């Protein structure tokens, strides 16, 4: 016995979600590029769809081909959860969806929006804590919410933001079909033997063999930079991923798998864009325009009656036929009633007319006694007084009244009868007379409706005649397919309008941002320039500071050296001081041979000598040769040292003009003689009288 391992399609399933980039319109094109063997035998060993999405191609193949094994993948966990829930619990899902549908449809527009937002909020709220890994009843509820949001959301989109939240606003559908129980059951049956994975396309590589048919429908590469709608799931699919996919494609085809991949054509936007041509240069690339499938189908169906449309039309006519028949039957009933009600009066018309004429004749000839009040006559006879004029009745009057009373008694019954039947007789005659008119009105209505009925019947017969000889099911399928394509095309056109509007908004935003960015860039450039200048200045300052410090150090060192040189040349005490140190702040240190600073303990002469050395060094180093004035130069110098100083002054004066202001006490004979020997100019200054001395300067 041979066992057929192929799962024969028993159900016609279709996508249960409306999915951006669904491939219903490409079914023909994809079917045309299937391997010949598959097209001929309608058998597929292994089918892989690593980007299942809405599953249009998969459901088509599963409904029309015998597939032995199927593997479907998607990185979108909400989508895979919904596939699994349909697969495992279609009935529970139908219950949930049915309940949502009832709740939603019974509300007015405003309340529907509230309901939608409430479901969306619930859907998004549980995301952080939701356990996608362990299947539970919660998965069925979540799947029902996913389908509900997809069917009622704007344009039927299912789009998640980066946080994985559903962010599509409510759509404007009058009565959306939320719970398509038949399709859910069919989808569930199709999925029974399908392996479903919430994994990346790459994970499928290991399972693919040379017997595999792989259809890849990755997120489209955006046709331009501003229309980036590739974020079908929160995981983006950029050019890097497209390149990785091409690598994967190479690997699986090297294994011998038959792979088909569809993507957007960037050449539509930029004919020089060879992105996919380069990536897939080793493969056949077939460019398909979305409208091509529709055009081809239209050509196929030219001259072939649209059976579905005809059946709908026929059903419409059939309903009209029922309506007309109903009206005609009603009118026939009305006519029957009229005939049976009128028949007695028409058939007895002679009698009615005759009686009516007799009564009228009797009235006209006063044969019917006037209506007399019997009680009035009886009362008058009894009282013998006329109740009308009040006169006493005489004998003749009494006799007349008695005869009148007898006449009344004798004819009263007949008169009553004749009088009573007069009006009913007239009514009956009238009824008989109006029969024809009434009947004609009814007959007119019947004729009118029969005419309409005949037309409708003729139309039905014409449709039946036109339908004859065609393969009903095949043509019906093609027409259904065409309707789907037309709907999809319209949807795409709607999307396009939306996307174009979004593109304009994004472009405007981009322009605004670019203006701001340019401003920032300019500011940044200015800031950088200023920053560079500041740095440069800082560097200059540092260099200058270093130079200054260096110069200052050098100057100080020179001054220090020269001060030492001069001090130790002038000093008459040998071996007492070691050196003179000058700090950076120019404070002086006189280092004793023992190593300590002896400035504080130096004598006045030593100090003055140090000061003179320093001043002369300063003069020498600075190059500023101004005269040196020293007031009372030896006032605090004692005895023999005064002459030492005088000699020093003489030595200094060789290179430098020096003015010494002596008091008389200071200017000793020894000093004076020494100065005179060396041709030193002397001036005597006499202070003024009011200062008790005379101030005059005179050469000596």
């Amino acid at each position, binding site marked *: 016995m041979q066992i057929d391992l192929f799962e024969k399609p028993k159900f016609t399933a279709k996508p249960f979600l409306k999915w951006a980039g669904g491939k219903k319109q490409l079914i023909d094109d994809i079917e045309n590029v299937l391997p010949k063997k598959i097209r001929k035998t309608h058998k597929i060993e292994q089918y892989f769809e690593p980007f299942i999405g809405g599953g249009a191609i998969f459901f088509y193949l599963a409904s029309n081909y015998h597939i032995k094994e199927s593997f479907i993948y998607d990185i979108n966990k909400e989508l895979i959860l919904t596939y699994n829930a349909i697969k495992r619990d279609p009935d529970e899902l139908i219950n949930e969806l049915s309940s949502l549908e009832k709740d939603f449809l019974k509300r007015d527009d405003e309340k529907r929006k509230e309901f939608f937002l409430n479901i969306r909020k619930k859907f998004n709220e549980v995301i952080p804590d939701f356990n996608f890994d362990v299947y539970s009843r919660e998965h069925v509820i979540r799947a029902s919410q996913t389908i509900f949001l997809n069917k009622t959301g704007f344009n039927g989109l299912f789009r998640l933001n980066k946080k994985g939240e559903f962010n599509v606003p409510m759509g404007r559908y009058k009565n959306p079909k939320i719970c398509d129980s038949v399709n859910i059951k069919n989808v569930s049956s199709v999925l029974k033997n399908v392996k479903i994975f919430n994994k990346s396309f790459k994970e499928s590589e290991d399972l693919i063999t040379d017997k595999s048919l792989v259809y890849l429908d990755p997120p489209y590469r955006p046709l331009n930079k501003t229309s980036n709608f590739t974020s079908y799931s929160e995981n983006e699919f950029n050019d890097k991923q497209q390149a990785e996919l091409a690598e994967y494609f190479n690997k699986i085809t090297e294994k011998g798998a038959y792979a088909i991949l569809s993507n957007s054509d960037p050449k539509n936007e930029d004919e020089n864009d060879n992105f996919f041509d380069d990536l897939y240069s080793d493969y056949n690339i077939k460019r398909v325009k979305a409208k091509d499938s529709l055009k081809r189908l239209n050509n196929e169906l030219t001259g072939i009656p649209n059976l579905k449309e005809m059946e709908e039309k026929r059903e419409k006519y059939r309903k009209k036929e029922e309506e007309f028949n109903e009206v005609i039957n009603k009118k026939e009933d009305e006519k029957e009633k009229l005939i049976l009600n009128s028949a007695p009066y028409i058939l007895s018309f002679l009698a009615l007319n*005759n009686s009516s004429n007799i009564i009228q004749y009797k009235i006209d000839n006063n044969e019917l006694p006037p209506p007399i009040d019997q009680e009035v006559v009886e009362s008058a006879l009894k009282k013998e007084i006329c109740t009308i004029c009040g006169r006493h009745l005489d004998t003749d009057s009494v006799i007349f009244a008695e005869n009148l009373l007898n006449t009344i008694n004798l004819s009263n019954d007949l008169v009553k009868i004749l009088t009573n039947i007069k009006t009913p007789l007239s009514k009956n005659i009238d009824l008989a007379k109006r029969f024809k008119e009434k009947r004609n009105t009814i007959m007119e209505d019947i004729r009118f409706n029969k005419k309409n009925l005949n037309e409708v019947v003729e139309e039905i017969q014409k449709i039946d005649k036109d339908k004859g000889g065609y393969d009903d099911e095949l043509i019906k399928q093609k027409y259904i397919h065409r309707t789907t394509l037309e709907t999809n095309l319209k949807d795409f056109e709607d999307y396009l309008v939306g996307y174009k509007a979004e593109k304009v908004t994004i472009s405007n935003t981009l322009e605004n941002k670019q203006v701001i960015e340019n401003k920032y860039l300019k500011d940044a450039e200015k800031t950088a320039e200023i920053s560079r200048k500041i740095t440069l200045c800082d560097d200059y300052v540092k260099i200058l500071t270093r130079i200054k410090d260096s110069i200052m150090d050098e100057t100080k060192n020179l001054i220090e050296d020269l001060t030492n040189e001069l001090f130790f040349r002038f000093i008459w005490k040998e071996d007492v001081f070691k050196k003179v140190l000058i700090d950076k702040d120019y404070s002086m240190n006189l280092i004793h041979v023992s190593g300590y600073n002896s400035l504080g303990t130096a004598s006045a002469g030593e100090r003055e000598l140090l000061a003179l050395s320093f001043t002369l060094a300063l003069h020498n180093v600075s190059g500023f040769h101004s005269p040196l004035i020293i007031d009372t130069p030896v006032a605090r110098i004692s005895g023999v040292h005064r002459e030492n100083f005088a000699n020093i002054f003489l030595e200094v004066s060789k290179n430098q003009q020096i003015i010494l202001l002596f008091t008389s006490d200071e200017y000793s004979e020894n000093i004076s003689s020494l100065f005179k020997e060396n041709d030193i100019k002397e001036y005597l200054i006499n202070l003024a009288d009011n200062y008790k001395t005379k101030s005059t300067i005179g050469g000596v």
Partner: protein
Amino acid sequence: MTVDRIIIEKNTKDIYENISIFKNLKWIPRFLITMSLGFSMDKRTPIEIKEPIVLKQFLKSEEFALIQSIAIKNYDNNVQILNDEEKVFKAAEEYANTGIKILKDMEDRNQLGSFLKNFEKLILDEIDQLEI
């Protein structure tokens, strides 16, 4: 003698109940149709076994007037006949007794569906003849 109910020939009761065009009618309209039909044929058929069908008090004034007019015509336009209600109804009942037989005969002779048409034709012929 006071007449308190309308009578028919006993063996015609089944006919009344089964004749197709009478299926939705009550007894009084049925009686009026057969009576008028008998009158139009100017033939009275005496009743052998009486079968009361409805109380006279249920007759509307127009219906009673019709019965009375037939009696006047039947008794040579003598309105005095109206004082004798027994005779008035006797005439009506005997005409009806003729009428039901004619009707039965018509139904028997016509195929289903054409009975009403023929009856309608009879009415229309009557209208033409009497120039109503």
